[in-house]
């Protein structure tokens, strides 16, 4: 039964067309954006520098590897002061209108920036720890504020030499398909296309009567449909991330930096990081595994919701648009500046944020659960496990009670 349900899902031509377009977009973006800076001329480089307000990567050859020998690893005070000094000299040269920098000088300039920046991050981290310590000293030790500060501080204390220069460029963008929000759009489009017909099509094709009158038509069939849907999600998810993985591998000529701390992860457009105060003591490869696992779980949770909507709505188009609205609603709230009060919570615990993942681990976020601080990712996971369990139960129950009266 599972095999036949799988056949139904995988013989829809539109999923192949959309999948092909998605891959094409990823390759196009990679070739025309990510790899663009690899072959950039000096004037373009400066233009991009000014536009982004931070240095951009320029080479995938061995220049950075050589610089890593000198500057690599966690920052030290010596490295910071030396890097700052060298940066100042180059800046002075540029101001004086000295002829443009050689590729090697540009790379060195980037590395100096990273090292100096890492020094700033290290300072921010220390300041954060001090601020938390003073909060702990000031507030009542039975209060929530105390417990929250204590929890964050204990996590930050676990971090060990997290800021520095690491060869990590290949991992930029490895966690998302193009970028976090695009990941949600691409994955949910493919999920909706593949799964909205699963139950709805049985209505529109008038096969429901035949199915429901069979021995397993009200029970095991639902299991087979769910298993086929999860297989589809697994194939789509792993295929897209594999394509993304290889695109990055090829673009950057390797996967160096897999064991660097995530606090060094640059955002895709510059050497700046969003993880400077992240309290999670993970290496990049661990974070990659966690990110993909969570995103996959989010896709699975969304799949169950789409299947339920498909069964209730009984129309493929309606099911598609209703599911799309559920995913896109938080984004619309934000656009309309409605992400306050209750909407803020709805947004934070939405399918969109769950699939996007990137906001979960950039900083310490905890919620007060019966007086105890519980980390945002854990609450999010807990809520979606409960919600999905209810959806699964309701799906089985509702399908068993389906009647054909039209």
């Amino acid at each position, binding site marked *: 039964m599972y095999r036949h349900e799988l056949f*139904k899902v995988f013989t829809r031509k539109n999923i192949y067309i959309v999948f092909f377009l998605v891959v094409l977009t990823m390759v196009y973006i990679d070739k025309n954006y990510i790899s663009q800076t690899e072959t950039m001329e000096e004037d373009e480089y400066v233009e991009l520098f000014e536009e982004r307000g931070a240095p951009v990567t320029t080479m995938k050859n061995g220049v950075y590897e050589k610089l890593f020998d000198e500057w690599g690893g966690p920052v030290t005070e010596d490295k910071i002061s030396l890097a700052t000094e060298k940066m100042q000299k180059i800046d002075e040269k540029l101001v004086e209108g000295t002829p443009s920098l050689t590729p090697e000088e540009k790379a060195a300039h980037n590395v100096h920036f990273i090292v100096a920046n890492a020094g700033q991050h290290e300072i921010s981290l220390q300041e954060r720890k001090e601020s938390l310590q003073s909060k702990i000293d000031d507030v009542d030790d039975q209060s929530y504020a105390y417990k929250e500060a204590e929890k964050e501080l204990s996590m930050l204390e676990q971090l060990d030499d997290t800021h520095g220069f690491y060869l990590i460029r290949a991992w930029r963008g490895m966690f998302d398909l193009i970028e976090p929000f695009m990941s949600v759009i691409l994955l949910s489009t493919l999920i909706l296309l593949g799964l909205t017909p699963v139950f709805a099509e049985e209505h529109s094709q008038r096969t*429901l009567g035949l199915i429901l*009158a069979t*021995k397993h038509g009200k029970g095991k069939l639902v299991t087979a449909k769910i298993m086929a849907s999860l297989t589809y999600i697994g194939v789509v998810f792993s295929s897209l991330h594999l394509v993304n993985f290889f695109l990055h591998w090829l673009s950057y000529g390797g996967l160096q930096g897999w064991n660097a701390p995530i606090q060094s992860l640059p955002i895709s457009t510059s050497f700046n990081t969003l993880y400077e105060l992240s309290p999670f003591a993970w290496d990049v490869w661990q974070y990659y595994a966690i990110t993909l696992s969570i995103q996959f779980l989010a896709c699975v949770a969304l799949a169950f919701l789409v299947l339920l909507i498909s069964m209730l709505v009984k129309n493929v188009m309606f099911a598609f648009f209703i599911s799309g609205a559920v995913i896109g609603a938080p984004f619309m709230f934000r656009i309309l500046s409605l992400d306050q009060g209750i909407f803020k919570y709805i947004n934070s615990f939405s399918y969109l944020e769950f699939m996007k993942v990137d906001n979960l681990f950039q900083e310490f976020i905890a919620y007060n659960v019966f007086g105890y601080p519980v980390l945002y990712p854990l609450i999010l996971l807990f809520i979606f496990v409960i919600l999905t369990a209810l959806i699964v139960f309701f799906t089985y129950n509702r399908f068993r009670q389906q009647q054909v009266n039209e």
Partner: protein
Amino acid sequence: MRLLIDNVSKKFKDKWAIKYFSAELTEGVYALLGPNGAGKTTLMRMLADISMPSTGRILLNDKDISLMGDDYRDILGYLPQEFGLYKNFTAVRFLMYFASLKGLDKKFAIDKVEEVLDLVNLTKDRKRKIGTFSGGMKRRLGIAQALLNDPKILIVDEPTAGLDPQERIRFRNLLSEIAGDRIVFLSTHIVSDIEYIAKEVLLLKQGELIQRSTLGNLLEQVKGKVWSVNVTQAVLPEIQRQFKIGNIQRNESGIECRIVHDEKPVENAVAVHATLEDVYLYFFDKGAIKDV
């Protein structure tokens, strides 16, 4: 085996589709006869456990079928009046899919699929995609899926719609053959489908059972109420307005009309042998007989 339909009703909003229907069925072919809109399909769906009665219950050997659930549907074969098929599936894949839905062992299913394909004369089209099938072929495939699990209870709703005369005869004979140790409940508004095979006929009108009897008894009830008369073209409209008219046939001496009426309709009318078609006409409106 005893299938008891106990005071079953189905109401949609404020309209009764089936009203307090009761019948007891044992092995054999039962024909549910009624015009379009009489409630046949609704009753069939309730028997197939895909629609819940608003009142009453259906019992198989004293067990409520809604409580039997999978066990009831395990011995059920159902062919709805209108159904869809998966266009991308071949005939074999479709039947293998339904074999799995019916819980058939895979090895057994492979042989069984070939057997039912042969029964409905689709063996040579077994590898063709259903999207390329004609309406009649789809109907035959529907019949094949209903027979896959050797059902003890076979419910077929207008099974011969869209079949050519040869296939209709073939299917009729098939039902007759298999009905020995099972209950076959057949709904139709085509009386020739059941003329030779029905153990009993149930007449359904506006959701209510108006007659349940053997074919012989029904014929007996209209005995002496079927007339043949020759009329001219000029008086035909008046005859049609006043009486229930069966066949109208032109012959050398004018137009021969078959009239179903309690008393002699006109002076020169002659009593003739009644057929099931006349029974139908006697109990229902004449419009419903057009597909005979």
